[in-house]
């Protein structure tokens, strides 16, 4: 426990000290929200546009932070030899990885809180009513994306390519699943692709709870699909996660 708290403190310091992570991982969804609400007004699917975009941006934030941000952090540490170096210390690998995961969850939590505050200030969006359901839904979503983030590190060979690869996954996923606006008018094939992606189900949960007054347990299908993606990510990660860089 002492080791976990020690590592978590340093993970937070490392995250906020790096301009790349603070801007691209933390700030980017918040900036995008401010931009989109300035452009869209009126109603989307019968709800005020800023409310819908707020829900969408929280989902995008989960993918961007817990999946892409986590994967880039781990790939860069692996390729410059930090993960290997850590393995030579008494810090148990499981404690290390748990601290990294919890740290990225904390970043995501602050991001979500910032989005709600910004929405409130700019567009008078309401505070969420079913707070427990929302927190549980976001925890499930972030955990599933973190598992997928761990899994994908095994397939990214170099630091240089990593943010390109991850953006090619995250941005189209966010677009196809409705983070940036409704998908009702998309061609059928694009909607079909969107329907299998995990972000679709996280957005389902967030919108159900925030926009339609539902509870988490009203959405068993979304819980099951997200959980399934998370378990799939975990299983792949167990087989492919590496601590050592590729030998030059």
């Amino acid at each position, binding site marked *: 426990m002492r080791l976990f708290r*020690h590592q978590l403190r340093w993970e937070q310091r490392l995250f906020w000290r790096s301009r790349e992570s603070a801007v691209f991982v933390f700030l980017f969804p918040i900036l995008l929200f401010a931009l989109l609400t300035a452009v869209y007004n009126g109603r989307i699917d019968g709800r005020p546009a800023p409310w819908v975009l707020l829900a969408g941006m929280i989902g995008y934030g989960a993918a961007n932070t817990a999946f892409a941000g986590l994967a880039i952090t781990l790939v860069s540490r692996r390729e410059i030899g930090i993960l290997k170096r850590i393995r030579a*210390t008494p810090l148990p690998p499981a404690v290390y990885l748990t601290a990294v995961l919890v740290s990225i969850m904390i970043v995501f939590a602050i991001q979500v809180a910032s989005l709600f505050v910004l929405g409130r200030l700019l567009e008078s969006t309401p505070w969420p009513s079913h707070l427990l359901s929302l927190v549980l839904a976001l925890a499930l979503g972030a955990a599933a994306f973190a598992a997928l983030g761990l899994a994908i590190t095994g397939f990214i060979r170099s630091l240089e390519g990593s943010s390109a690869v991850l953006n090619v996954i995250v941005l189209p996923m966010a677009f196809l699943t409705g983070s940036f606006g409704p998908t009702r008018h998309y061609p059928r094939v694009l909607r079909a692709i969107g329907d299998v992606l995990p972000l679709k189900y996280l957005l389902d949960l967030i919108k159900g709870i925030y926009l339609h007054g539902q509870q988490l347990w009203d959405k068993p299908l979304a819980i099951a699909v997200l959980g399934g993606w998370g378990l799939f990510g975990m299983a792949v990660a167990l087989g492919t996660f590496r601590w050592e860089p590729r030998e*030059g």
Partner: protein
Amino acid sequence: MSAISVRDLRKSYGTSEALRGISFEIKEGEVFGLLGPNGAGKTTTIEILEGYRTRDGGDVEVLAFDPERAGSAFRERIGVVLQHSQLWPNLTVAETHRMFAGYYEQPRNVDEVIALVGLDEKRDARVKTLSGGQKRRLDLGVALVGDPDLVFLDEPTTGFDPAARRAAWDMIRSLRSLGKTILLTTHYLDEAEQLADRLAVLREGVIIREGTPAELTGGSSETEIRYRRDGHDVVVRTTEPTKLLHKLTAEAVAEGRELEGLSVRRPTLEDVYLALTAEHRQ
């Protein structure tokens, strides 16, 4: 007491045999050098001893642990400098040390370690602003912060300028005076000669010679005398250098000429090493 004991260690990668059954012992408090050309198996050996790699055969004991199965208790007692590794660019020197110190039950005082590796003036500098040599000293500081009994140094001065190498050598000598056992790999012969109490020369996964630097160079009794005559280099190897030198200088004085570029030298470890590895190649 042996700090490290290796018997008939074997390791293959696919069909290529990296280690073909090597054996050696390192006593507590000893500086042991593993010397050899690139690809000889030095890093494979050190990484098996550090617990990074599994072995295919043989017995290995490091501080009475089997590194393959050892956990935190083993890692409390070792310090590691990897061949290629960097640390967090955005942390300062002191922060990096404090972060690592937190991993150990009884770490050394961080300021003392920073002073020991000569980074006092860079204490609050970000790691990304350090020079290559300073980064390597940081690696060493981080390896020492847990107060290890045994330190692994995998090519600790590769890429250093001569002054930085001298400074690193002084640091390694001061580690030895603290009673640490040190396993050092290098392909610099002068480094091994300067630092190691004993050496093993590794080539193609086999130890081809082992002993103190003096034993390795002492095997040859020839002395080499070199000078220039009429614009040509003359090289003579002799087992009776006093006699030959006397004759050469007497002749030169009698003829009133200078023995230009005269040098007398004993074979260095490098000569022995090159001869050894060449012998093996045939």
